[in-house]
C-alpha cells in the first residue's frame, strides 16, 4: 500500500480523537489564559510538550512562579506514562530508520497510541486467522498510519489551545470561578468515565483527599508526595493481591 493511502487511513481513524481533543484543548487554553499564561507560551507548550495531563499538572505551579524543579518533576512524572506506550508501538516500526522513528514519536499521545496499537493488532490477528490476504504491513506502512493519526491530532490540539485562549479573552468579568473550574472539572469527568476495577477509584479518591493536607504541610511538594505515596501504595496492594490469587490458584 502506498504511503499516502496508509496516511489517509490513519487520518480517518483519528477523527474520534479530534472530537475528543476539541473540548480538552479549548479547556486547557481557557485555563492557561485564566492562569496568566501568554498566547506564545500556550502554543509553545502545546506544541513542544504536547501532553494534556502534564500541561494541566504544571499550570498552577508555573503560573504561581513556583520553583522550576517542582514544575519539572511534576511534568516528568506525568510524562513517564509515554514510556510503555512508545515501547508497545516500537515493534510495529521495525525496520524504520532510527531518525524517522525518533521524530515521529513526538506525536505519541494516549489517544494516538490506543488507536494505532489496536489497529496494528487487529491487522496482525486478521492475518493470523487468514481473514485477509494482504501481506502484513511493514514498519514504514505502520509508521505512516501512525503519523496520519498522530500529526492531525497534534494539530487539532495546538490549534484548540489557541482557540481556548481567544475564548477566555472574550469572556466578560465574573466568570473567573468558572474559568478555573473548567479544566479540573474536565479531567475529573475523564477519570470517572475511564474508571475500571477497584484500584483506580481507590487511588483517585485517596489522592484527592490526601492532596490538601499534603499541600498545607508543604505547598511546593506536598501534593506531589502524597500522590506518589497513594499511587505506590495502591499499586503495591494490587500486586500483592494478584500474587496472592495466583499462588492460591496454583495450590488448588
Amino acid at each position, binding site marked *: 500500500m502506498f504511503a499516502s493511502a496508509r496516511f489517509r487511513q490513519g487520518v480517518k481513524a483519528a477523527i474520534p480523537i479530534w472530537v475528543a481533543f476539541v*473540548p480538552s484543548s479549548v479547556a486547557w487554553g481557557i485555563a492557561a489564559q485564566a492562569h496568566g499564561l501568554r498566547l506564545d507560551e500556550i502554543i509553545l507548550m502545546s506544541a513542544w*510538550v504536547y501532553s494534556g495531563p502534564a500541561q494541566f499538572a504544571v499550570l498552577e505551579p508555573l503560573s504561581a512562579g513556583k520553583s522550576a524543579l517542582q514544575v519539572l518533576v511534576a511534568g516528568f512524572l506525568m510524562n513517564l506514562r509515554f514510556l510503555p506506550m512508545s*515501547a508497545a508501538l516500537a515493534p510495529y516500526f521495525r525496520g524504520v530508520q532510527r531518525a524517522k522513528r525518533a521524530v515521529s514519536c513526538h506525536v505519541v499521545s494516549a489517544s494516538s497510541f490506543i488507536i494505532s496499537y489496536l489497529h496494528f493488532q487487529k491487522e496482525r490477528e486478521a492475518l493470523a486467522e487468514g481473514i485477509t490476504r494482504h501481506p502484513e504491513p511493514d514498519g514504514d506502512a505502520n509508521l505512516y498510519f501512525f503519523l496520519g493519526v498522530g500529526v492531525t491530532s497534534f494539530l487539532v490540539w495546538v490549534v484548540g489551545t489557541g482557540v481556548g485562549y481567544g475564548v477566555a479573552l472574550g469572556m466578560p468579568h465574573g466568570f473567573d470561578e468558572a474559568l478555573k473550574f473548567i479544566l479540573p472539572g474536565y479531567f475529573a469527568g475523564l*477519570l470517572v468515565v475511564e474508571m475500571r476495577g477497584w484500584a483506580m477509584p481507590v487511588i*483517585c479518591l485517596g*489522592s484527592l483527599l490526601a492532596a490538601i493536607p499534603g499541600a498545607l504541610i508543604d*505547598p511546593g511538594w506536598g501534593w506531589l508526595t502524597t500522590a506518589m505515596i497513594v499511587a505506590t501504595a495502591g499499586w503495591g496492594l494490587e500486586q500483592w493481591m494478584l500474587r496472592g490469587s495466583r499462588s492460591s490458584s496454583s495450590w488448588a
Partner: protein
Amino acid sequence: MDATRFEIIFIMGLMAFGARVLPQILFVGRKFPEAWDRFLRYLSYALICSIIAVTIFMSSARFETQAAPRRGLALAVTIAVAHFTKSAVTGMLIGTLVILGLSWVG
C-alpha cells in the same frame, strides 16, 4: 516571553520527548513489563487527582474555606453527571454551570 517560563517549557518538552523516544531506541522488539505499565498509569491518575484537589480548593498555598463548599459541590456534580452520562464534557459543562450559579448567588 518570560525567559524562565520559556526554559521550563523547553526542558519539560525535552523530558516528554525523552520519554517518547527512549523506548523507540531501547525497546524495539521487547515488551514493557505490565507491572511497570500499571504503576505509571496509577501514578498519573494519582497526580491528576492531586492537582484537581489543589487547583479547585487552594489558592496561594491557602485552603479557600469560603469557596470550598460550592467548589466541592460542583466537583461532586461533575463526577456524578460524568459517571451517569459517561461523558466528561457533559459533566464538565454541568459542573461549570453549577459553580457559576453558586458564585453568582453567593
